[in-house]
């Protein structure tokens, strides 16, 4: 009997070593994983990292939901997949008033997926709903650019007084508060998608909860794809929307979107061919960065996003700005991006990335442990042990955990502070952030348009995505003043002043500016790297003629095939 157990032990050890040895084997292929699609030529399998919080354009505020909305709805304008320049979409052309405040959009004749005609009223309905306090959208602030948007959101004006009007069924007039230079770029954002008003009436008549309108059995959309199946935490299936105005240029018939949170699992599924593209919102595991570098299907491009930690400024001891600044200065950001995230990110203590639309970064110190200790002592905690334990929350993902563990150790080693880590599922995490049920909470903010305002707006008092509870009249006034300026140079200067003012109080701790690293199967065409990480599925297609060894692979930065854009 003992002999057998001993033999089984030997067998086990040998198997263990063999498995490991096969795992460690260097791959001779220039591609990471399989190079033949495991499905038909009109289909693509991608990942969207987690169960989205909302698929409702009026309520969504996270990138996992945004990815779906962008591909199932179409707004007045769409972003060019490579340059993000505004292109005509539902609007064929538009007029702009001389003062830059009034836009008149002329809509093409188009239909919802149920055959109902799409009218300018659907846009009016959607945008009113966005700012309506009854909707309770975290992204209502996107509607503050429209005249009366802020007042309506505060409940001080009637919803129908919004500066968005349907002149007739195919003409829409939008009146802005300020002549925003980035307005047309911003207009392709998912918050501004039309919403099928007739579906809401229909659901109401049938006595069905209107919040369920985005479920696959009810949803009516006007974008390139339509959801046909939603398996909770498993996957969603999308089919081509035949009623889409530009259906002729949509090459795929079906898109399968999985929800795999773990970046390692997503990468392994990519290797096995379960994913053709692990998706826009899935990052690659940091450990593999150096290894992946040599593969041809690995791509890297700049990304307009900032990774930071929100601080709940209402709970002691973090209600003291000195403590918050000490925490920020104790983080060695250069080391963090070089050794932990490893994807070429740029360590930064600024909220607005340097060089964004001509903006000059603040270049706040990225690491100063001596000053951090001094600030902490000044706040009344000469040694960090006196500081009550703080909790750092993040949503489940190895990448976030790695950053959190590194920072936990930095705070422990530099300041002697004990930090507890807590990981939460994405929806729970967002709910806790919204209810201010945290002390320090991880967040990433992707610019909605190429202007510093998209980041600075986060700290305004009326912004639903401001989870710090920090607010300042001075700051709000500075931003308002900036947007009323006609001189772009002067405007940026005021914005810069506002950023410096806010960061002196440190309601959040910026860590680094993102880069996007991704794996794309060599037979997938029509994905371009852009700084907002928007990847419309309508341009994607499977290149059946691809053979491994073919060297003219399309890079995300230099597209091989020209984009055909219908105007």
């Amino acid at each position: 009997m003992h002999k057998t157990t001993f033999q089984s032990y030997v067998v086990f050890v040998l198997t263990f070593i063999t498995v490991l040895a096969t795992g460690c084997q260097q791959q001779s292929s220039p591609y990471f994983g399989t190079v033949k699609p495991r499905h038909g030529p009109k289909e693509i399998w991608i990942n969207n990292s987690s169960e989205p919080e909302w698929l409702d354009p009026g309520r969504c505020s996270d990138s996992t939901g945004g990815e779906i909305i962008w591909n199932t709805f179409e707004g007045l304008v769409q972003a060019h997949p490579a340059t993000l320049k505004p292109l005509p979409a539902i609007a064929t052309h538009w007029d702009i008033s001389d003062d830059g405040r009034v836009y008149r959009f002329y809509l093409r004749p188009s239909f919802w997926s149920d055959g109902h005609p799409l009218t300018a009223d659907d846009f009016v309905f959607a945008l009113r709903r966005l700012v309506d306090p009854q909707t309770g959208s975290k992204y209502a602030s996107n509607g503050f650019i429209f005249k009366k948007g802020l007042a309506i959101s505060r409940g001080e004006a009637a919803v129908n007084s919004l500066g968005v009007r349907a002149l007739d069924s195919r003409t829409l007039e939008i009146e802005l508060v300020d002549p925003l230079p980035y307005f047309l770029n911003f207009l392709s954002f998912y918050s501004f998608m039309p919403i099928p008003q007739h579906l809401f009436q229909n659901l109401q008549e049938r006595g069905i909860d209107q919040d369920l309108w985005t479920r696959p059995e009810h949803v009516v959309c006007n974008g390139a794809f339509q959801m046909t199946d939603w398996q909770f935490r498993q996957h969603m299936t999308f089919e081509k929307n035949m009623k889409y105005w530009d259906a002729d240029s949509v090459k795929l018939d079906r898109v399968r979107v999985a929800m795999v949170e773990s970046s390692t699992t997503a990468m392994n599924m990519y290797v096995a061919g379960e994913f053709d593209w692990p998706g826009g919102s899935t990052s690659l595991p940091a450990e593999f960065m150096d290894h992946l570098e040599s593969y041809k299907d690995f791509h890297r491009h700049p990304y307009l996003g900032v990774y930071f930690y929100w601080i709940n400024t209402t709970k002691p001891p973090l209600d003291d700005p000195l403590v918050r600044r000490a925490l920020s200065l104790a983080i060695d950001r250069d080391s963090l991006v070089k050794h932990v995230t490893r994807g070429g990110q740029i360590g930064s203590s600024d909220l607005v990335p340097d060089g964004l639309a001509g903006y000059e970064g603040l270049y706040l110190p990225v690491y100063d442990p001596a000053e951090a200790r001094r600030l902490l002592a000044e706040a009344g905690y000469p040694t960090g042990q006196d500081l009550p334990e703080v909790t750092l929350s993040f949503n489940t993902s190895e990448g976030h955990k790695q950053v959190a563990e590194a920072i936990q150790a930095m705070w422990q080693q530099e300041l002697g502070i004990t930090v507890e880590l807590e990981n939460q599922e994405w929806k729970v995490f967002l709910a806790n952030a919204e209810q201010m049920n945290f002390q320090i909470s991880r967040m990433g903010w992707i610019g909605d348009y190429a202007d510093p305002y998209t980041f600075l707006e986060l700290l305004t008092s009326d912004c639903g995505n401001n989870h710090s509870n920090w607010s300042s009249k001075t700051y709000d006034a500075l931003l308002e003043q900036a947007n009323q300026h006609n001189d772009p140079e002067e405007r940026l200067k005021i914005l810069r002043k506002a950023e410096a003012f806010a960061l002196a109080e440190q309601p959040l701790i910026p860590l680094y500016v993102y880069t996007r690293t991704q794996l794309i199967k060599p037979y997938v065409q029509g994905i371009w790297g852009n700084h907002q990480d928007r990847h419309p599925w309508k341009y994607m297609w499977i290149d059946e003629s691809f053979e491994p060894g073919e060297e003219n692979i399309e890079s995300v930065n230099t597209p091989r095939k020209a984009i055909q854009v219908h105007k």
Partner: protein
Amino acid sequence: MKCIQVGLRSDEIDSRAGSSLWEDAWKRLQKNKLAWMSGLFLVLLGIGCCFGPAFLQVVWGYDDHTQNLAYGPQPPSLEHPFGTDFYGRDLLARVLSGARVSLSVGLLAAFVAALIGTIYGAVSGYFGGVVDSLMMRIVDILYALPYMFLVIILVTILGKSLVLLFLALGAVGWLLTARVVRGQVLSLKEQDFVLAARSLGTTNRGIIFEHLIPNTLSSVIVTFTLTVPSMILQEAFLSFLGLGVQPPQPSLGSLINDGANQMLVFWWTLVFPGGIMATMLFALNFLGDGIRDALDPRMKT
């Protein structure tokens, strides 16, 4: 008795003078090489876990939580026999400290399980009848509950503390011991020494704790040695899910989880914690097997 001793040599007298069950078992265990070596390995591992991290700190200046990011993941070398992890921490120190957590969770949880299980089983078996039926139905119900879910719920409610983790694991791990002890007590209580004790006026409590439980100890010990590895696995599983020990404190489960994510690029982060874990579990099982064989009188050769 005296007449038997006449004419025997002194060494024979010793062997006849009656060796206790424990002495016999100890002798048999010594003959079982695999069990004996497993025991030695476990003792060495135990010493390594207790003093290793402190030793490494004093001699080399490593501990299990100080990060040195620039010293990234490094393969094993003379300086770091197990290499370093993603944050530049010495993996040997982390594996030892993780094994300490795993071993102590295993031992403590198994102890809690044995304690609850023995008392529960003895009471149930001794009183019999309605009490027995009722108590055993409770055990059946607990058996029917998905064990891991129960632990996960307990951990979620009680919070992620290490001590609570021991208790949560032990508190749901006593079912097997309870059944084994009950079975033994059922047959033991019919024997004459219990009758004798009762006629001498010993209380129920006295009979259970002084007469019945000591007689079931051999099977309790066997169950205990086999519960320890299963508890270690449970803890590793919980830590793997992120519900066990919290960073920066390592445990073998969390080390293996980290290692499994990086095994294609940094093989040593999986091989060493995994190897130690596997060897430890094998050793515990061999030792448990050995003790069971040693304590079983029918195995006498």
